[in-house]
């Protein structure tokens, strides 16, 4: 089986899908494929997005979508065959403050019971890894990040909470994410960040994008309440 599959999802849109497992390494390859395609078809592509193991390209012209698919397939295959020659992309790490106080963490006690681990242990394990942002979606600015420590693996709630507060930091399976706006959600909320994930008035509206590295650090409730976004690094 080929390691890459290219298919249309719309008359003007096609997706390059790597038939590989989710990992930071796969994501690096995906980014390289995206760069190669954007470089060659700069004028013909209006938008492109990344998600875990796939890159999607929005084209100006709906003519010859099949032709684009063939050419994207060739470029992707070339990148896959040349992996050893390329240096790893260097990424800056974005540090995000989180208050794990129980008043901001409606699901921390239940998670502690289900995982049979103390709250402190859960907090420690959540802050431990450096996370990779694999995609932004669900609602504007919501980052899907992995991988959460296997000891925190909890399935999504069977019934989603009708209202999750903005800034809520949550876990589900081996993923962690942050709710930018108030919305219904099925992930387990274990803390809250004062950082604004999405602000339509900012020049760059979204704090994170696919490919970024994220580290969480703990702040107190008092620090949360006195948080000033401009102090943020």
């Amino acid at each position: 089986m080929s390691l890459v599959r290219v298919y249309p999802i719309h008359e003007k849109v096609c997706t390059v899908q790597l038939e590989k497992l989710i990992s930071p390494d796969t994501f690096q390859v995906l980014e390289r494929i995206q760069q190669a395609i954007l470089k060659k078809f700069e004028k013909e592509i209006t938008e492109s997005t990344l998600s875990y193991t796939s890159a999607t390209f929005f084209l100006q012209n709906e003519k010859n979508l099949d032709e684009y698919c063939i050419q994207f397939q060739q470029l992707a295959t070339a990148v896959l065959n040349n992996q050893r020659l390329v240096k790893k992309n260097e990424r800056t790490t974005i540090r995000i403050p989180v208050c794990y106080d129980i008043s901001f963490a409606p699901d921390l006690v239940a998670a502690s019971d289900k995982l049979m681990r103390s709250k402190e242990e859960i907090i420690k394990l959540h802050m431990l890894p450096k996370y990779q942002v694999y995609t932004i979606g669900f609602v504007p600015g919501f980052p899907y990040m992995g991988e959460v420590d296997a000891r925190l693996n909890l399935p999504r709630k069977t019934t989603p909470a009708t209202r999750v507060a903005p800034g809520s930091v949550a876990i589900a399976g081996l993923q962690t994410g942050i709710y930018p706006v108030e919305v219904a959600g099925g992930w387990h909320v274990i803390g809250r960040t004062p950082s604004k994930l999405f602000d339509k008035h900012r020049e760059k509206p979204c704090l994170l994008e696919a490919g970024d590295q994220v580290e969480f650090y703990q702040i107190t409730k008092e620090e949360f309440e006195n948080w000033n976004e401009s102090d943020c690094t």
Partner: protein
Amino acid sequence: MSLIVHKPGLQSTIQDAGREGFRKYGVPAAGPMDFAAAQLSQTLCNNYHNQPFIELTLHGAIFEFEKTAVIALTGGGATALLNDTPLPYFRSAVIKAGSILKFCPAQFGCRTYLSVQGGFNIPQELGSTATYLPGKLGGIMGRAIKAGDRIEFNLKKQIEEKVSDMEVELGNPALFTNQVTIRFTEGPEWSWFSAEEQNLFLHTKWMVHPQSNRVAYLLEGDALALTQKRELISTAVMPGLIQVTPAGIPYILMADAQTIGGYPRLARIKSEDRNRLAQCRPGYQLNFQKI
């Protein structure tokens, strides 16, 4: 110089041609559900396609015009009364200052487009005025229109009284029947479904579920079972794709659909048939035809 909202109707939003360039931040295009009808209302007003207009859902809205304006109504789902006199769709009309425009029930269709010559005066957010309700973006503070809103429109220096007298038709079957055929091609995960399931999808008379909205249309019928319990890694989705939930319920992604999804994508609807869907109201019967 405003349009005053006395009643907003079921759901009325400001839209334009849609928001491009922000999908990587999880922001979909939004824009009108029925592109053809929306463009036509703009054309009838001599507007650019990207000027703001109003999309209304079914009936109930009551608007007042503070100032004389040229407007056009297209689409369906309501009958319009201008000062208690029927106002035909699909042609432009001069509306005198102080007029009341009321939307009453109609038998067919679902969405009306109201354009005003010069366009409504709405600030852009992320390059567009299109309302994206789930993200609280665009339109009037990211929300649907409500009673008491005064929506300014841009008056041309001189009203073009001599508006085009043409009357046009859209040929959208959902505007005159409640049984609609939707054409599709195989979706990326079509082969994940057995031949039996594919046939079930093709031969079921699906009903549009009452919970359908600008995000997605839910279909009521026999549940589709996935023979292989495979998991899809979340990937890009677009309006027009049909996803099937683990419970076997197909739903069609529409204008406000999120940018990524994790359910298998059974089918991809022919883009122009999204206009048909936009005019299908809950209870309409759909059958799917493979092309």
